């Protein structure tokens, strides 16, 4: 087992650094869209700001309310960053092949992502706080809205490459020199929108709506638990960007052979993160009933149509 690869590159250390880098990028771009600066002081150009926030939170007092369900309350912040980290090893980062790959790892990824939503619900439920309960309920309801179109959109590339392994899909795109996004543009759009819902970003940050239910299911977490949960959000961003890149944008491969794969990966995932941030700045927040009904009225039929088109194309 390649221990150095597991722990440093393209493993744990690299993924953590990438998570913090994307949070910085997201905050800076979001700020510039709104005509303000974003973090600029901590470290060169503010790059160390997410790390500083993480360290600060680790040092803060970890308040555990007396009425919470202790085992669950303590487990959720540990599981929430671990799950995306598990799945990140399935995504090709430094080469066309992922660190670990097996047939069907795409389905495994989708499964882990729905587990994250269940964890959000459990986090809110175990907090026994009215606002957290509402947030957890909303997280569960939101899952009902985006899971189906997301799964359908992500299966599209699998249909094209005739394989359910993310590595094989990337290899297909590299060997055919064609990005699957060109073949399934609707699927690409649905995947991006549904990823916004999964990451709980505006317009779908309903479970965590700051002005309505304080912080939703994350209300009661503080100190180290909150640090881990914020890290989890950043890791989910890396996961979402990496998954979309691998499935739709050709992963870490590109037409010019001299440039190493990792550069392609970084460029493409940065592009996806910028799209997600732009959508974040563009919209207001939906209500949960509007989100679920809108998803079933528009996203699901579009995803079905996309799959039908793909089947016709591939004949």
């Amino acid at each position: 087992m390649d221990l150095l690869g597991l722990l440093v590159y393209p493993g744990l250390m690299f993924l953590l650094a990438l998570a913090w880098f994307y949070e910085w990028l997201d905050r800076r771009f979001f700020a510039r869209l709104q005509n303000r600066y974003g973090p600029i002081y901590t470290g060169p150009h503010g790059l160390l700001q997410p790390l500083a926030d993480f360290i600060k939170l680790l040092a803060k007092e970890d308040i555990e309310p007396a009425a919470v369900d202790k085992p669950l309350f303590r487990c959720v912040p540990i599981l929430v960053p671990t799950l995306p980290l598990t799945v990140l090893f399935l995504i090709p980062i430094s080469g066309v092949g992922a660190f670990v790959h097996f047939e069907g790892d795409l389905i495994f990824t989708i499964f882990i992502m729905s587990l994250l939503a269940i964890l959000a619900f459990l986090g809110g439920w175990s907090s026994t706080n009215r606002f957290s309960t509402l947030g957890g309920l909303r997280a569960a309801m939101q899952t009902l809205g985006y899971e189906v179109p997301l799964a359908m959109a992500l299966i599209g590339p699998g249909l094209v490459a005739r394989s359910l392994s993310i590595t094989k899909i990337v290899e297909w795109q590299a060997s055919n020199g064609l990005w699957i996004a060109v073949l399934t543009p609707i699927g690409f759009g649905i995947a991006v929108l549904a990823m916004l819902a999964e990451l709980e970003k505006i317009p779908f940050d309903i479970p965590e709506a700051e002005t309505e239910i304080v912080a939703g299911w994350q209300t009661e977490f503080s100190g180290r638990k909150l640090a881990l949960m914020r890290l989890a959000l950043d890791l989910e961003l890396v996961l979402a960007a990496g998954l979309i890149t691998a499935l739709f944008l050709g992963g870490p491969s590109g037409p010019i052979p001299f440039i190493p794969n990792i550069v392609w990966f970084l460029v493409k995932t940065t592009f996806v993160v910028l799209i997600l941030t732009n959508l974040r700045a563009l919209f207001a927040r939906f209500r949960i009933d509007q989100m679920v009904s809108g998803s079933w009225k528009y996203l699901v039929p579009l995803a079905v149509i996309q799959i039908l088109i793909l089947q016709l194309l591939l004949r």
Partner: protein
Amino acid sequence: MSESIFTVPVGPQHPALKEPENITLTLDGEQIIDAKIRLGYVHRGGEKALENRTYVQNLYLVERVCGICAMAHQLCYVNNIEALLGIEAPPRAKYIRTIVAELERIHSHLLWVGVAGHEIGFDTLFMYTWQDREIVLDLMERITGNRVLHATNSIGGVRRDITSDMIPLVKKGLAHLGERVKYYRKLALAERTIAKRAVGVGILKTQDAIALCAVGPTARASNVKRDVRKYDPYSAYDEMPFDIVTNDGCDVAARIFVRIDELEQCARMLEYAVDHLPEGPIKVRAPRSVPPGENVSLVEAPRGEDIHYCKSNGSDRPERYKIRAPTLANWASMRKMLIGGSMADVPIVLAAIDPCMSCTDRIALLDSRSGESWAWNYEQLKRYVQKRYGE
């Protein structure tokens, strides 16, 4: 399952509220089935403080009732005292007062559009409107010396003159703001996410608005055509060309449109006032002691009708001063607007009446058993406290 009914307290600390009040919502899932409102968290004893200071000192205390509608409160106060003294401010002073009051209305409405955007999760709109508001605040600082809490009125006129070098700045600012207001109007119409959160939310029908005494843009968005500047003009409003803006949507979207359209009317009035500024003195001398009497004055603050009552007793301090801020009148309609909606709508419905809790809190005593309500003066309150808590 009836177990899904539970109560959620919104406030006194809540991110949706900029100032503390308590609304206890009874929810069935996400639907609101009841709302109980408790006010009084920002009670600062302002009316008592006004009795302990001279009329000159009170000029500055009265404007601190609210930071955003400071000019409106100070204008109401000054109108009151001038009526008791029997003096009238010169025409130039009246025009300057109108100019500052309308500039304040612009800044208040822009602030509100930003806060409303923030409440529905639209932080970008918040940043953009507050950036445009900076134009107004810089103009205010140039004209009056301070960005908010302008303190530009004095008893008998205004304290600072608008010199000729300020007028091109005002016009330039208005031109830029005009562009931005057109853009915000287009945005409010076209942006689907705003429409989804604001249309059909927080409904207050016209007869309810009249029965529950809603004032200001809240009432005008329910098609109640009432504006103090038209039916009881003060300062130079009887010479200003403007229309009362109403909207028959009766929901939050209507309130957004009413405020954005009022911005256009403000710009119109400002253009007229700046072009027709009469020459002359900016204040008349006012005696320090006010002869005994009572007076009520009304002013259209950005949030609605602001009523001040003053009782003087011949000394240089008021005997009793009472302030009825517009938000207090709008709270009664709040319950009507909340019930039947969803939890997600609470912040925007709350924000739509443009609540200014600092304005609102004045003490009223209620005996919960007999249902009788009355008001005490300081001596009675002091005696009650001493009796209740010993010495």
